[in-house]
């Protein structure tokens, strides 16, 4: 079978990094290298974060005064819809898995690439197409339905072209997400190196695995629902619109069958990042490894059974509400298990307050509050008055911004030396973490209070008694934005001025830190043998510039 003509030339050991492997725009846009695709995702989602962030600042400025300070009511509705849609579909869902996960997953496995590099590239381009559709929505006049797109309002003909484009964008980004999930699961299943059983994997991989399961099972339902809505709007099928004999509640069921699990698509990878960082910067093996690993899967599974807690007041049967309320309580248990294990990991550890760790500490504080307020919303009796108030807004921003975005920043700083080969400036990084933390709390704590007092969400104006809450919140939003700008500036500055990164600047034990920073095109010359990802024995710091090395033979 083998002739010299078919045989592939044995690649020589490479020395240049993946950044130098091929030049020019095309070598990036059509690359199959998971690292470059990860970087392109990183740039794309950061741009989306910037766009969504600008929307948010306009919203907050508008809410400076009770009757609205800046834009028309109609524009306000469109702005909060696009803010939500961009942040959720284009930043926070793809954020950690597609950008950091793409880069890190094969490296942690000692693999040369993902299982399906072409699928990976396709997934990226589907994402870009979806993002462009959302931009076009903006151009054709926007949508004012909220990111939840509930019919009948959303599918009335008065909504125009925007809603059709938005639904198409949801389908495109959905397929992008599904393909990423398929790729990650297949890679983790089949490409683990010798010496790495399931319970020897870094917890970030467990988190991505559980995320992949959710992506594959829930996202297609959103896709087909968006497609049904699209056709309903054009052809009046009578599926979701009562005037044609349809059932709008069914849309809500389908929507939340995706969108509740989607919150775990966001938080599980974030928890994965936290598990890595907390162990490395406490210089202690992670506490309760198996519990953290298995609780990721538990969250993935139970998370499918709780969607009805978004519909307590939508006309769902009382018994269904009762069951959903109970299951919601149940799903918070695995999250709590993780939190306790992280705290126990830090106990008597030698904690190093580098930027990733500072971000992670703020994560603990904020995720604690976000998760606990979820319980109030999951309990039937308390949710009925709190539903659709600013309490809900504050809850989900605590978990999405305060937990997921902060974990994203932690992970970004943690893996930045590996991605770019440069060390960022610690002082700037820590300062950004503090600004983000303070700004965040200033923005969203007042919203909890306003929500408890009954301020409803999604209105362009509000009762004057809430003025103080809203002004504090607006000031907080600018502090938060400043923190993000400082973080970005620090990272970008390091690209030119940063110290060269050693292979292992943190003294971490997982496989990605055994190769050069930045890695070569093929990552590993030979498939490495894995050892415990949290086994720090024998690692010691040579110097700041040379980083940590492992003394073999211990």
């Amino acid at each position, binding site marked *: 079978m083998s002739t010299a003509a078919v045989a592939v030339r044995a690649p020589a050991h490479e020395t240049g990094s993946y950044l130098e492997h091929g030049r020019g725009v095309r070598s990036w846009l059509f690359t199959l290298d998971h690292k470059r695709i990860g970087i392109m995702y990183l740039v794309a989602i950061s741009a989306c974060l910037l766009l969504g962030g600008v929307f948010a600042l306009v919203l907050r400025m508008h809410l400076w005064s009770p009757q609205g300070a800046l834009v028309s009511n109609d524009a306000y509705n469109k702005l909060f819809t696009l803010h939500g849609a961009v942040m959720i579909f284009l930043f926070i869902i793809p954020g950690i898995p597609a950008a950091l996960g793409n880069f890190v997953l094969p490296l942690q496995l000692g693999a040369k690439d*993902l299982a399906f590099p072409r699928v990976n590239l396709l997934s990226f381009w589907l994402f870009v197409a979806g993002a462009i559709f959302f931009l076009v929505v903006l151009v054709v006049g926007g949508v004012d339905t909220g990111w939840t797109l509930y019919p009948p309002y959303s599918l009335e003909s008065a909504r125009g072209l925007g809603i059709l484009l938005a639904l198409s964008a949801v389908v495109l980004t959905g397929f992008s997400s599904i393909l990423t999930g*398929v790729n990650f699961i297949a890679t983790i*299943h089949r490409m683990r190196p010798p010496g790495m059983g399931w319970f020897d994997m870094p917890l970030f991989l467990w988190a991505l695995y559980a995320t992949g399961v959710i992506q594959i099972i829930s996202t297609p339902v959103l896709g087909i629902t968006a497609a049904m809505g699209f056709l309903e709007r054009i052809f009046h*099928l009578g599926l979701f619109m009562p005037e044609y004999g349809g059932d709008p509640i069914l849309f809500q069921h389908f929507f939340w069958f995706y969108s509740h699990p989607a919150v775990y698509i966001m938080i599980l990878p974030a928890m994965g990042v936290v598990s890595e960082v907390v162990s490395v910067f406490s210089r202690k093996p992670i506490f309760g490894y198996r519990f953290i690993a298995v609780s990721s899967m538990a969250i993935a599974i139970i998370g499918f059974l709780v969607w009805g807690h978004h519909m307590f007041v939508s006309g769902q049967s009382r018994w269904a509400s009762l069951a959903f309320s109970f299951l919601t309580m149940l799903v918070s248990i695995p999250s709590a298990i993780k939190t306790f294990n992280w705290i126990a990991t830090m106990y008597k550890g030698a904690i190093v307050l580098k930027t990733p760790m500072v971000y992670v500490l703020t994560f603990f504080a904020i995720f604690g509050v976000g998760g606990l307020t979820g319980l109030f919303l999951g309990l039937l009796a308390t949710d009925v008055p709190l539903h659709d108030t600013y309490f809900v807004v504050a809850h989900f921003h605590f978990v999405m911004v305060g937990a997921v975005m902060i974990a994203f920043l932690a992970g970004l700083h943690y893996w930045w030396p590996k991605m770019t080969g440069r060390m960022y400036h610690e002082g700037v990084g820590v300062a950004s973490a503090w600004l983000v933390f303070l700004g965040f709390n200033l923005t969203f704590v007042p919203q909890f209070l306003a929500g408890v007092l009954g301020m409803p969400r999604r209105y362009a104006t509000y009762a004057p008694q809430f003025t103080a809450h809203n002004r504090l919140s607006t000031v907080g939003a600018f502090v938060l934005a400043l923190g993000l700008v400082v973080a970005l500036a620090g990272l970008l500055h390091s690209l030119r001025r940063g110290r060269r990164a050693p292979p292992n600047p943190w003294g971490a034990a997982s496989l990605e830190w055994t190769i050069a920073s930045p890695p070569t095109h093929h990552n590993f010359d030979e498939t490495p043998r894995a050892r415990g990802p949290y086994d720090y024995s024998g690692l010691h710091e040579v110097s700041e510039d040379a980083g940590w090395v492992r003394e073999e033979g211990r």
Partner: protein
Amino acid sequence: MDATAQPAPAARHERSRFLAVQFEDMAAQLATGKLGIWLFLANEVLFFSALFVSYGVYRSHHPELFRYASQFLDWRMGATNTIVLISSSLAAAWSVRAAQLGNQRTLIRSLVLTVVLAATFMVVKYFEYSHKLHNGVGWGTACNPSPELLASLPAAVRAIPVPAHLGTFFSLYYLMTGLHGIHVLVGIGLYVWLIVRARRGDFGPGYYGPVDAVALYWHLVDLVWIFLFPLLYLI
């Protein structure tokens, strides 16, 4: 760089040109590809499932509507298509076996047979759709069956007044069979691609992953139809 750590040069020579760089050997590549396609099929099942759930919900709300509306569907056409599709699945399975055995002629023949049967399915579907649309049976609000069609129904059915929102049933009918039909068309495309590659002699005992993967997909398309046929035609 010590030489002992590198695979022997002979092993390098064995590397098939179909083996992607990230895999150690063909067996690993095949197994991974197969897992990937199974995961993709899980996603497909969920994709259809929302339509099946909608079907369940609307049917439990309006059982009489569903019983009435299914009179408009011709179970003979549906049954024919069921047989056609099951036969094509057999041909697909056959093609996998032929590739594994390296039997080039059987491989190409069975692939061609699969395509022919799939195309037959679509032709029957075309006649069904055009007959309905011709008689005013569209979807949603566009469903206004012509008097001739109503007159052709069995007497027992004719006695019942046309229920409101008849179109909802046909919305589901067109959505479900339409989405399924799109899958059949994609399948035809994939099989044509396989035929081109098979004629080039790409497949054999050492490399048959694509034939296997497309066949798995095709069996799922078949399976979906096996649920659609009784749910739509036989109620």
